[in-house]
């Protein structure tokens, strides 16, 4: 995939399929430490140990349409390509935590891409998911909570689809204020 934000969309989609109601996306970029860290935590049903060990194998999947699942293996590959690490922890009944690290300035590192579009897409697909998106760079930090969207809907008596454009604009502005060169 061309953007890390697409991997993030894919991973959170997995979390939603695992019946998560809360998801936290935490991104930290540090130019000084040449480090990019993406952590995704969910309260879904979790996976047994056996599955955690096998999950980055493309021939292991929960899908029923085909016996091949590329998602996690592609994400792991993206981390390893940029001298990073990939760490998955999961507890049955409690949830899953995925931590990806990248060398920020490694030439093979896939760009982060359009996080605003990823977050907005997740809200459209699953409006009652409680999604927190935190992002920190050398320039600053911010936190976006999907309840912001629900709050705007209630305040202005808008439908979900009417709220999407202002929400996206709000997110893009926030991202712009902390955007680093990475």
């Amino acid at each position, binding site marked *: 995939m061309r953007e890390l934000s697409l991997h993030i969309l894919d991973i959170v*989609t997995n979390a939603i399929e695992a019946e998560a109601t809360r998801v936290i996306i935490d991104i930290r970029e540090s130019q000084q430490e040449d480090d990019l860290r993406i952590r995704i935590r969910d309260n879904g049903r979790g996976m047994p140990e056996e599955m955690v060990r096998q999950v980055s194998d493309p021939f292991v999947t929960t899908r029923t*349409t085909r016996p091949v699942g590329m*998602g996690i293996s592609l994400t792991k590959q993206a981390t390893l390509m940029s001298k990073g690490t990939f760490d998955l922890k999961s507890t049955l009944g409690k949830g899953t935590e995925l931590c990806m690290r990248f060398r920020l300035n490694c030439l093979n590192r896939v760009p982060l891409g359009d996080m605003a*579009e990823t977050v*907005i*897409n997740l809200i459209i697909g699953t*409006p009652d998911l409680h999604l927190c998106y935190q992002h920190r760079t050398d320039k600053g930090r911010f936190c976006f909570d999907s*309840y912001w969207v629900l709050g705007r809907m*209630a305040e202005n008596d808008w439908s979900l689809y009417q709220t999407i454009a202002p929400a996206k604009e709000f997110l893009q502005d926030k991202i712009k204020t902390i955007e680093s060169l990475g």
Partner: protein
Amino acid sequence: MKTLADLRAIKEKAKLEMATREQTAKYRLVVAMGTCGIAAGARSVMTAIIDEISKRGISDTVVTQTGCLGYCDQEPLVQVMQPDKTVITYGKITPELARRIVAEHIGRDQVISDHVFMQS
């Protein structure tokens, strides 16, 4: 500052809105968002659909997402469902085509037959 109770009430209201929309919807648009769909561009297809729907003020349509449909080579896939009608599945959708689906299929009830991948 909103209290937790306020937030819960807001969430319930939003849920109710979506439920009403689902029940009264004339059209249901489904975007396939498995790994294959996402890699092929389903995210910008979804964005284009929502943008076009809100621009046109369409209120009888609900947009949802699904996982891999098993036709990864045809991604991004978009399905148009109507009660008691055959499901139309469009394949290899671009954001421009997605806008046309909203304008022509949803807006004027005209199937864009050149881009139909499957009817079921």
